[in-house]
């Protein structure tokens, strides 16, 4: 159904579960390293594969990170918090249960201020933020699609099993109306900004450091009772969160308007088709047979620790945005473009590394965003801010032209190293050595002897032909401004 028609008929209610992988050195309950991209099953300790007799011990840093995150979400921190077993049978965890939290989460009752594109603020209520462990990674083999249906078997890598997670659960979010899809995107972006500012997670969606399940239900306008919800999984970019929520609103509205009913279920988002498809019927909490984890004792954070972490909280993203806008001197439109492109933290970090704000903005919203768009990834996943800052410095100092800098950027993105390493290994630096330039200029003048006379007659633009020839001869690495000066000197001399 048309989105506008869906909103005439129904009020959307949203809810989100965002999983944040913490960037601790080790896993949640054991001393195996928390790494991304290692060879399968090489970052494993006995607890990860459920070996008999192995016992979990809580990572203190993960608890500190979780409390900091809870505080940044405006939550209360539990006086006493405990872990629970969530029982389910699926090979992504070898133990047949996940250690999570159920009735005593570490943090609860918070709220997050989310800014929409036009600057309006929306408060999202947070029910809880609890600690748990991540599951292993399954690769489904066989079948045409690589999806679960039709797969012949699955291969399991437990490196990710046991990685510390914080799951942030909202209360039902009402009142977003037609802003619901945009709010979904802005909420997840805000969570990312918060965890990055805290430094508790790399929060890279394309790596699964930050994952979002989006709950959507509809109810007729004026009805108090909430409608039946669906939970869409596998939405792993800001853009897909927005699209998935919009799609679910339209899909559910069509069913309800037709007199049908919504099935409470998990649904999978398909990036390629922009649609969702049914997964399994959603289990009730009862089906997980939660009970207190007998292998772990409660976490009782001292009030002194909570206050220490509260005092160390960084500036909230909304406040930071207001400050940065003033510091950088961007116009409203420029700043909004940066925020909407999700590039605020990248630009802030690039500026912190020494780049001028307008240069940082130019590169991130220009060339880097263009490449990211072509490759269908987030710009922040392509290149580190310190490399962008280094690149800008090389242009400022005249070592690189803009054109060469774009080549260097591509090479950095393709993993050839830091900008100065690429410049060196590819021999890309601008030639501003007068000797080399004069040799090339004289060669070009020999081929076009009338140019100097034209310049002497006042046709200074004739120098362009020589600059072009020198550039061509030197593979684009000549300092054009210096070539021009030298040509004009020749004409005078």
């Amino acid at each position, binding site marked *: 159904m048309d989105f506008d028609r869906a909103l005439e008929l129904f009020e959307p209610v949203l809810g989100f579960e965002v999983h944040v992988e913490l960037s601790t050195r080790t896993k949640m309950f054991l*001393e195996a390293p928390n790494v991304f991209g290692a060879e399968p099953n090489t970052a494993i*300790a006995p607890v990860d594969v459920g070996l008999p007799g192995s016992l979990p011990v809580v990572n*203190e840093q*993960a608890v500190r990170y979780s409390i900091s995150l809870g505080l940044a979400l405006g939550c209360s921190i539990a006086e006493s918090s405990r872990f629970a077993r969530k029982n389910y049978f699926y090979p992504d965890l070898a133990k047949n249960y996940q250690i999570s939290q159920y009735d005593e989460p570490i943090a609860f009752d918070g709220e997050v201020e989310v800014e929409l594109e036009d600057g309006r603020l929306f408060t999202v209520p947070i029910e809880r933020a609890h600690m748990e462990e991540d599951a292993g990674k399954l690769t489904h083999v066989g079948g045409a699609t690589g999806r*679960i249906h039709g797969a012949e078997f*699955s291969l*399991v890598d437990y490196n990710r099993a046991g990685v510390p997670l914080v799951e942030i659960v909202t209360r039902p979010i009402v009142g977003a109306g037609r802003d619901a899809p945009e709010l979904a995107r802005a909420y997840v972006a805000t969570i990312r900004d918060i965890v990055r500012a805290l430094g508790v997670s790399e929060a890279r969606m394309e790596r699964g450091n930050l994952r979002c399940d989006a709950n959507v239900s509809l109810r007729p306008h004026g009805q108090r009772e909430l409608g039946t919800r669906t939970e869409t*999984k596998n939405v792993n970019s800001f853009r897909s969160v927005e699209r998935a929520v919009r799609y679910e609103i339209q899909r559910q509205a069509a069913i309800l308007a037709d007199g049908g009913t919504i099935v409470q279920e998990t649904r999978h988002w398909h990036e390629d088709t922009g649609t969702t498809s049914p997964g399994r019927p959603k289990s009730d909490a009862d089906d997980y*047979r939660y009970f*207190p984890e007998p292998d772990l004792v409660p976490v009782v954070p001292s009030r002194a620790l909570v206050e220490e972490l509260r005092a160390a909280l960084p500036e909230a993203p909304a406040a930071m945005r207001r400050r940065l806008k003033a510091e950088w001197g961007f116009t409203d439109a420029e700043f909004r473009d940066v925020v909407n492109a999700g590039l605020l933290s990248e630009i802030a970090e690039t500026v912190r590394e020494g780049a001028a704000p307008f240069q940082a903005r130019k590169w991130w919203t220009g060339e880097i965003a263009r490449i990211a768009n072509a490759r269908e990834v987030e710009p922040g996943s392509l290149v580190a801010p310190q490399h962008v800052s280094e690149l800008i410095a090389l242009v400022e100092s005249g070592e690189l032209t803009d054109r060469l800098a774009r080549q260097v950027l591509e090479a950095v993105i393709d993993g050839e190293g830091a900008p100065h390493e690429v410049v060196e290994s590819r021999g890309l630096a601008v030639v501003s050595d007068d000797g080399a330039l004069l040799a090339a200029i004289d060669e070009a003048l020999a081929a076009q002897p009338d140019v100097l006379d034209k310049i002497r007659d006042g046709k200074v633009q004739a120098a362009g032909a020589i600059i072009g020839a020198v550039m061509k001869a030197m593979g684009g690495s000549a300092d054009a401004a210096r070539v021009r000066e030298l040509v004009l000197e020749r004409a005078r001399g």
Partner: protein
Amino acid sequence: MSEITPEVVRHLAGLARIALTEEEVARFTGELSHIVDAVAKVNEVATPDVPATSHPIPLANVFRPDVVGETLDRAAVLAGAPEHDGSRFRVSAILGEEQ
């Protein structure tokens, strides 16, 4: 009395991936009811002034520092696997999904 019905037993068996015959469903309905009733006797003695126990040992805050320690050799990790491809466990495709 507990509320263990044959439907509850079938549901639990499904969650636990156990196939039961109708005879077994009938037998477990009775047996589970006995067990649940026995455990429910705790309710008769637990009064509101008895706080819920989350752990039998009165301890809290047992932590370890965030320092990488020993990991298992991959061959050891896979040693117990019924099937593997040399680097990953191989399991039957299951109609379900990642949690």
